[in-house]
């Protein structure tokens, strides 16, 4: 391997544990990655630290890295002004139901696109692809008109159902299902398995990595959505965390230090999920191969 050749250079770094000294390539790589990680992490860390600063610290110049006094009151104030528990539960509910629904709908559509030959299939698929490209802002009012004529405004379903139609999910699943050998499905048919049985017993288990990816993206998308829920959730009881945050940020008089605290509170659940699930997330993505 190339790295072995490089290790013959003059560099002689010995680690304290007395293991094999790292090669120059390894040092370069680790240094490079560490610097890049700092660029990625530092702003987030800075932001979290800022949320513990009072308004005087926030406007001090040059900026202070650590707060002169840890303003936990930013958080207690934020808790007082906003019903965090309620918003959190709404976020969890909407995210999970929408994700389940997304998986069901998208996997069926993807199955049809990848394994059935019906007229206009390719046309429909291109249309699905095209739908990925429509920015929400463009069709916001027409969608709103549809949702409201169905009487779904100001309901959980109004936030969940339109969101479940995510063309990106269909795209990812379809790409993956193309790799499932047709022979498998054919032989199941010959054995007399029904279409739904084939789908549920053969296709879905095989598509598990792709489903995991779609599930993860769906969770991320739904958790962070705010433009749509802001429009649909008219009642405070229906607010999700990002909606409450957008509200807080949009109210021009909410003190900035409290906005910061609320922002951090809104990303904590995501960070938790991330810390505990990052392996699954990344392996899931890795396994789909997304080719």
């Amino acid at each position, binding site marked *: 391997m*190339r*790295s072995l050749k490089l290790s013959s250079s003059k560099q002689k770094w010995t680690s304290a544990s007395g293991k094999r000294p*790292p090669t120059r390539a390894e040092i370069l790589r*680790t240094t*490079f*990655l560490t610097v890049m*990680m700092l660029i*990625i992490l*530092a*702003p*987030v860390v*800075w*932001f979290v630290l*800022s949320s513990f600063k009072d308004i005087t610290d*926030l*406007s001090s*110049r*040059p*900026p202070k890295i650590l707060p002169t006094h840890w303003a936990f009151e930013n958080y207690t104030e934020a808790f007082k002004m906003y019903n965090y528990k309620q918003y959190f539960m709404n976020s969890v509910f909407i995210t999970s139901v929408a994700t389940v629904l997304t998986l069901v*709908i998208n996997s069926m*559509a993807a199955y049809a696109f990848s394994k059935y030959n019906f007229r206009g299939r390719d046309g429909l698929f291109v249309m*699905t*692809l*095209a*739908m990925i*490209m*429509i*920015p929400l802002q*463009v*069709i916001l*009012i027409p*969608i709103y*008109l*549809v949702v409201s004529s169905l009487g779904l405004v100001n309901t959980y379903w109004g936030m969940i*159902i*339109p969101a*479940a139609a995510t*063309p990106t999910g269909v795209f990812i699943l379809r*790409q993956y299902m193309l790799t499932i050998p047709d022979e498998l499905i054919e032989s199941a048919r010959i054995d007399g398995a029904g279409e739904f049985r084939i789908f549920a017993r053969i296709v879905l288990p095989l598509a598990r990595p792709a489903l995991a990816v779609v599930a993860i993206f769906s969770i*991320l998308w739904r958790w*962070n959505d*705010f433009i749509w829920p802001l429009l649909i959730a008219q009642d405070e009881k229906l607010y999700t965390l*990002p909606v409450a*945050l957008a509200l807080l940020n949009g109210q021009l008089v909410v003190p900035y230090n409290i*906005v*910061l605290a609320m*922002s951090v509170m809104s*990303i904590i659940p*995501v*960070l938790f999920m*991330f810390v505990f699930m*990052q*392996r699954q*997330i*990344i392996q899931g993505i*890795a*396994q789909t*191969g*997304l*080719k």
Partner: protein
Amino acid sequence: MAIFLTFIIWPALRGIYISFFDSTDGRTFTFVGTANYKAIIGDPTAIEVAKATATYVVFYVLIATTLAMFFAIVVNEQKFAKGFFRAVLFLPVMLSPVVVGLIWNDVLDRKVGPLNALLEAVGGGSPGWLIEPKLGMIAVIFVGVWVHLGFYSIILLAGLQGIDRSLLEAASMDGATRGQIIRLIILPLLKPTTLVIIILATIHGFQSFDFIYTLTGGGPFGATTLIVQYIYDHAFQVPIQYGLGSAAGVILFMVIFAFTALNFLLGRKRDAI
């Protein structure tokens, strides 16, 4: 499928239909033919917006895909703390756009932001990242890349792991340099994945809106007003010109569609997708 029809296709078709009407309130519509399209073409702001969008998309796609590729290759070879690096890379992807905007507003502040404090400490002055048009564009491109880099890298990483290691080892035995291995083996094998990344990045680039809106509000002096904000401003901000907003939406859709179709066709020619 009914859900797709109801919540995406029907609204989209309606959007196209509305683009031929004039409406100041979303309730009453007057047919105006192609007047909205003509108005956009004749609008000097729209030209600025088109230029800004083009600049943003070109740089965003170039930088994001190149960096993601670089990252993926480096992380793939990394042994020490590989999982950690992968994880951190993915972190910004998970943040909501509002939070992203707030974070960078804080970091890039000309006076109390840590970046300028750092620059001042090394004698780099204190540039107005969010108040000078060129710097504003650089800032939003940078933040756009910051947000999505992890997403693209992870997908590429997946592609890399799919490459047969014995192939690389054989090449290395034959005395190929690292550069040669990357250029002649890895990159060609990654082409399909790269295409997916380029398609996604192009779409993301054209659709960028919410974090920019929180970060710069389209400023300074309109320098970061991209097409989606133009649409949003016309459709939702007073004076409301809903038909005009829809027309701009249709134009955006056609542009993205053309780009994607091009990518797709190029890809298909090489059996990529």
